[in-house]
């Protein structure tokens, strides 16, 4: 998708992770969100501040996907997981671990990797 227009704040968010400066958006009541986001859904606060994303998160759930969409054909099988980073949770692909060894509660770091099938950027979790 390199020849397409970037997806604004989403691509900027990936840039920030690549630069080691990953962030999330927080309202005055501490509710966390990922960009693009203009308003807190829970308290309607529009004054969202940029806060540093914790360096490590915990796997909340995971699955090894063996039947992918065509855009991930050459990546399969791969482990998609949701990881809890405190104020926000993030969805990504776990790399650097045998799929059978991934478990709920595993501590992972966040980085940007590349999709094997298309070369697109993607969120990668790596065990800490």
């Amino acid at each position, binding site marked *: 998708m390199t020849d397409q227009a970037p997806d604004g704040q*989403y691509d900027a968010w990936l840039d920030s992770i690549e630069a080691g400066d990953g962030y999330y958006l927080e309202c005055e009541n501490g509710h966390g969100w990922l960009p693009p986001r203009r308003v807190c859904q829970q308290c309607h606060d529009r004054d969202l501040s940029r806060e540093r994303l914790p360096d490590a998160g915990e796997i909340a759930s995971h699955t090894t996907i063996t039947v992918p*969409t065509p855009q991930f054909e050459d990546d399969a099988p791969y482990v998609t997981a*949701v990881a809890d980073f405190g104020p926000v949770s993030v969805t990504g692909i776990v790399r650097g671990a045998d799929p059978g060894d991934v478990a709920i509660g595993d501590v992972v770091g966040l980085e940007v990797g590349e999709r094997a099938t298309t070369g697109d950027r993607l969120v990668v979790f790596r065990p800490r």
Partner: protein
Amino acid sequence: MSDPRIAGAGVTNFGKHPERTGRDLFAEAGLAALDESGVDPEDVESLYYGNFMGELAEHQGHQGPLMAEAIGLDVPATRVEAACASAGAAIREAVKTLRNGESEVVVVGGAERMTNIGTAAATDALAIAADDLYEVRAGMTFPGAYALMARSYFDQYGGSHEDLAHIAVKNHEHALVNEHAQIRKEITVEDALEAPTIADPLGLYDSCPITDGAAAAVLTTEEYAEEHGLDAPVAVTGTGQGGDNLALQDRPHLAQTPAADKAAEEAYGDAGIGADDVDFAEVHDCFTIAEVLAIESLGLYERGEGIAAARNGETTRHGDLPVNLSGGLKAKGHPVGATGVAQLATIAWVLDGSHPRADAVPDGTVGVAHNAGGTVASTTVHVMEVRE
């Protein structure tokens, strides 16, 4: 405010009909519904039509008027899209229109053509109901999303893949006599457990098939049904809809579906019933774990207890609370935009005694339909009751 009556319903055979256009599928279902209703087509005042992936599967948007034309109507026609809950959301629009007096007769339905583009492209098309930026780009598929929910459920409440297998076995058995069902084949727990994995812990038999098909129903006001002497004993007495964050990552629980809780609470309140009054349910079992989450959100089971319902025989046709007498999405099939109305048709036919599994609830008077979109970011619940 009177409750709309179901004057007639129609469904196509669900299955692989790659050569059949969406408009032909809907024409068959819509005309069957009009025939069963006995309503003069000139009296129909609007069409609400559910469809999810028409642009991707048929390169066809703007399907509302196309489908009105297909069933011989010249009425205001609106396509409603809420992913797999599109038809449930269409029912809700129809009910509101009838209740507020804008129309006396409405056709509601849905259709989906899916197998013509093949499994890979259909999987891709279905995935657009998830959050594209944060889920699809992380390799999320719909089996994958429900697998995340299943693993989280097992972690929080217990349960196993074998418990889920009992749901697949039950729904396959229910579909054996359903002539419209896509899969009429009995399976065993061992078959389900030994089937290829799609997204662990979910395997082939935890997943509904990819389906072409259509469903339609004719709804009228109570007054119209009386004035025209229609045989329409079943009423839609409650409607509810709930929403949630599109992406699983933005929800506090992966093993609960609060959109369905909200929809059920609203629908039960609207109908003036409680979960204890429900005699049977058609729920959105796109994956086996989804049936568990549905019956818990509907208040039919406490959290953590729905997982054992099929294994214990409670939700089979011989149990106290049959779930998915049609075979559910699992065996009947899931033509996405039609599913909500197919559920309504099943409940109407069970309640009026014409469904082949009506003998499971011979004294049943209250049925509930649960139709969920995406990973339950949209849910509609409808209560249907016998009103002689």
